Structure formats: C-alpha cells, structure tokens
C-alpha cells in the first residue's frame, strides 16, 4: 500500500516549469528516494508535499485521501508529514533541546494563560514532552552530550542530526529528508544511514529522501524515483533504476556532445 501517492503534479513559476506531470508513489514503511541532477525539481516536490508551494495541477494523496490545496503547512505537519531541509533550518537562538521540543509543537495544546503561570496543564505537558524527547529521541540519536548547547556552535554533521531529531519529535508518519548526508564525512554518513534504517524499522516511519550520494541511496533505498527536468523518468527497485539507460543519460548526458549542446541551447531559449 502507498502512504503517499503523487499524480500528474505540475508546478511552474512564470515560464519555468519546475515539475511537469510528475507521478510516483511512496510505499508504506519503505525508504523511498528521489534522485536526479541539480535543478530536477526534487526540493520543489518536497515543498509541494509540505504545502509550501501550490501545484497548478495534479493531486497528492496521503493515506488514501487527497491533500487539498487549502490545507496549510501547519495542518500538514499535524497530519504527520515532517521534514528536514537542504540548508539546515535550525533555530539559532535556541538550544538543541528547545529545537527538538519545538518539533512537538503541533501535538501540544497548552494555551497562553497556563503558559504565563507555568502551572497545571502547561507544566505537565512540558514535562511529558521533555521525557519523550529525552528517552526516545535524544537517546536514540546519541546527542545527549550537546542538549544544552546553542545549535549555532555545533558542527555541520551534528546540526543535521539535531534537525532529524526535531523532525522525529513531530511524530511523523512520513519523514521527508532533503539531502540528509550532504557535506558529511564517511563516518557521519554511515551513522546517518543507520539512523534512517532504524527509523523505518523500529519507529515504523516511512522515509522519503532526496539524496545525491549514490552509494548510500543504492544501499538503503527500497524504492527509487528518478526526476529530470521536472519529469519522472522511471521508478522502481535500486537495481532496476541503476541499469536504466534513461537514467544513465540523465546523469551522464548523451554520448553525442553536439546534440546535447543543441538541446541545452533550446532549453535556454525556452526559458
């Protein structure tokens, strides 16, 4: 069964067609990866699913129901669509702990008055979240040594991990990771790959990922969709995708340099 089903999605900014008639599915409890060259529309697709961009055409079905265009990003977060960002989007003025707690925001209810008094429901709720964050997330991602630090002081790899922690605090059903291992060294990449697999297996969360590191993509993905110039070229198992001639062409270009150049010029004029 597919937890997320994208059908005929089209998105354009003025004359630029970011996504054209994109259709693919994300099977439940898998690691599904979207690959494709830079500018293929991968992040735009994430932004459509998050509700930040409104596609001109097509539907996104989540758990069997269409996500209407008027469902705003905060509502989608509450429905269980969590994500991390390509350029780390942590809140620099907060500690690691507060950043992670912020992820639980949509599942908390206390209002302004009880917050001002920090009494009764607000206090109990904060304590419950603290316990949850500490014992399920901070422990799992092995970041207990940095919980009191401001995020701005952390290394890139740790920041990525904190961002993952924050997304997990959102209690997601689908976790969208935008380039989770970009810019990491080998050890950090291996850690992250292990976390992603554990999130799928132990937490039962479906992972939808955009990633350029082909080694990792082929190792941990159950399902891959290939995007190029806003269109899905193919989708399937890693082994199928790897040997698909269209995919090779998308990454390496035509063997005929001259026709490639012509094609690029034509694209340039169209834009």
């Amino acid at each position, binding site marked *: 069964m597919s937890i997320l089903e994208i059908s005929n999605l089209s998105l354009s900014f003025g004359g630029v067609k970011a996504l054209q008639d994109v259709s693919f599915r994300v099977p439940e409890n898998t690691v599904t990866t979207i690959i494709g060259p830079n500018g293929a529309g991968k992040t735009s697709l994430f932004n459509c699913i998050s509700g930040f961009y409104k596609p001109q055409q097509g539907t996104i079905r989540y758990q069997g129901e269409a996500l209407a265009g008027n469902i705003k990003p905060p509502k989608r977060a509450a429905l269980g669509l969590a994500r991390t960002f390509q350029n780390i989007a942590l809140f620099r003025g*907060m500690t690691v702990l507060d950043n992670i707690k912020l992820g639980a925001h*949509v599942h908390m209810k206390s209002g302004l008055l009880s917050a001002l008094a920090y009494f009764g429901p607000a206090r109990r709720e904060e304590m419950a979240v*603290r316990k949850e964050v*500490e014992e399920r997330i901070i422990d799992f991602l092995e970041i207990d040594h940095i919980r009191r630090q401001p995020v701005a002081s952390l290394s890139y790899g740790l920041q990525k991990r904190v961002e993952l922690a924050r997304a997990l605090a959102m209690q997601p059903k689908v976790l969208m990771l935008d380039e989770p291992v970009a810019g990491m060294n080998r050890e950090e990449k291996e850690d992250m790959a292990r976390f992603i697999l554990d999130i799928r297996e132990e937490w039962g969360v479906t992972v939808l990922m955009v990633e350029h590191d082909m080694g990792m993509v082929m190792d941990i993905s159950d399902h891959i969709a290939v995007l190029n110039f806003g269109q899905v070229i193919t989708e399937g198992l890693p082994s199928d995708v790897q040997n698909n001639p269209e995919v090779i062409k998308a990454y390496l270009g035509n063997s005929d340099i001259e026709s490639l150049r012509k094609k690029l010029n034509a694209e340039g004029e169209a834009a």
Partner: protein
Amino acid sequence: MRIGDAKQSYEADEAIWTSQTQKLWLGLFLLILLVFPFVVDSYLLYLGCLVGIAVISTTGLNILTGFTGLISLGQAGFMGVGAYTVAWLSINTALPFPVTLVLAGLMAAAVGILVGLPSLRVKGLYLAIATLAASVFLHFIFAEWESVTGGMGGLSLEPAHLFGLAFQSDFMMYFIIVPLAVLMVMAARNVFRTRIGRAFIAIRDRDISAEILGINLLRYKLMSFALSSFYAGVAGGLFAYFYRVVTPESFPLSMSIFYLAAVIVGGMGNLLGGILGAAFMTLVPEALKLLTAALTPFYPNAPVFMSPMLEIIFGALIVGFLIFEPHGLAEIWHRIRRFFRLWPFRN
C-alpha cells in the same frame, strides 16, 4: 561558585533557579527591593517607580521585538491606550486598580492585535513603519476624541484605590509597581519555558521553516503583539496612576524609541537584558544630572556647560554600548557569571 548541580528528575532540570546559590541571590535581591522604599529619599523612590514601569513596558517590547523579531515603534501608543483606559475608568467608574489595570492591558492587547495584523505580510523595517503609522494614528485619537480623552488638556484622575485604601504617595505606588513588575517578568520567563515561547523564537529565527514545522504564523505573531501590548497597557495604566494626569504628550513617539533602545542596549531576546536596559535608559540621564550637580561646587559654570551635553553624553553611551557590547548589558552579566562559575579553581 556553582558545583554539584546534577539533576535527578526532569522537573528539577527544567526549573528556572537550579542551584541554592541562585536562590540565595534572588532572595537577597527581593529583600533589597522590599527594604528599598523604607531607606531611600523621595527622589530615589520616584526613580524606583519609574524603573519599575519601564521594566514592565520593556519586557513587553522585548517579547515582541527581541523574541519574536517583529520591530515595533508603537509601544508608546499602546501605553497611551492603557493609560487612557485607566484614566477613563477611574473617572467614570469606581473599579479598584487591579481591575482597571487588567482592563487597560486587555484594551491595549486588542489594539495591539489590530496593529499587528499587517505583520503577516510585512517584516523588518516595513513593519516598523506600519507600527509607526499606528502610533501616529493613536496619538491623533488621544488628541481629538475629546469626549473620552479630554483632548489636548488630557485627563486628571484620582489615586489608585483598593478596599477603600487610596494609593496617593510614591511610597504606596511603589508597592503596586514593583511587585507587579516582578510578577510580569516572571510570567514572561514562564512563557519562554513552554511551546508558545519556542514558537515566538522560531518565528524570529526562521519563519518559513517554523510554518512547515507546524506553527501558525498569523496566530503566534498576533499572540506576541497581544502579549506585548498587554504589558505596555499595564505599564501605561501604572503611569497614569503614578502621575495622575494623562495627556497626548505623555506618550510621544520618542518614548517608543526609548523603549526600543532599552531593548537593544539591554540585549534583544533576553529578559534580564530588558530589565537592565530599562534601568540603564531611565537612570543614566538622571545620573548625569547628579554628576552636573556634584561638579557645580568646583566649576560654577557646570550647569551651563553640561545641560546641553547631557543628551550628547547619553547618546554616546548608547553608541558605545552598541559597538563594544552588541549583545547588550545582559552579556556583561553573563560574562561575570561565567567567571565565577568555578571560581576560584579555574577560569
């Protein structure tokens, strides 16, 4: 020195005051606040009350500008709304001061929500200009709506009262203003221990990703405006009870800038900074006046020479702080604390 503060429960770890030393200093500080009015002269008492009012208003603006990242030049206008509400209520009703102050805060909060509406679309300097327009508009209403505000002449009001007790002197007002200031700063601190405070900071740091993480921007921006102007309204109400006269000129635009400066000099997004900034902005001009008086016996011309210099020195001090201490006065305090953390063993 601060050692051995390992915690055994999340409850203990989430507390604001985590060590005995901190609690001791806090108790001492509250004791000083309590004893202060009994030992000082009327001038210092007057200043103490002014600082208390400024602390409340600065904390309010800090919530909005320092923590939520929404620059506002409307603070004086919101204080005016609170002051006029209190003045009108005390003339036309017999309500005691706790009720009138809460109503003043709520009235200012309602106006704050209206003024905050553009904040979903405009940010930064553009929002500052939008709030500036609102403050000009409010000033116009204060001056022209004569049947309610008394026009340019303003309103005079009776002293604050509760259970038949009238708070006439500065000495008595001190016992309304300062406890209220302590209470309201504590309440603000509480907000920043909960999801609401985190949402404010998230909006300041990255509003777009805050929205994708599930924070309703309009709702929380308006909440911040409401909370901030509630503080301003209460401060304005206290101002009205303190001076017992309210005119449109009580809340000029320069007052909004005064509070913005207090937030910046103290340290944006830091409650302690708001307190220090409010005290600094209120007391330094007075200290400079005292300095002039102290110099007069030695240099008879000091008043002539110093009075035009006061503003310049004050301005230079602010510029100096911005250059040498861009994170505000609160950062100086944090440095001192870090120094004594393990003192005398290691620095």
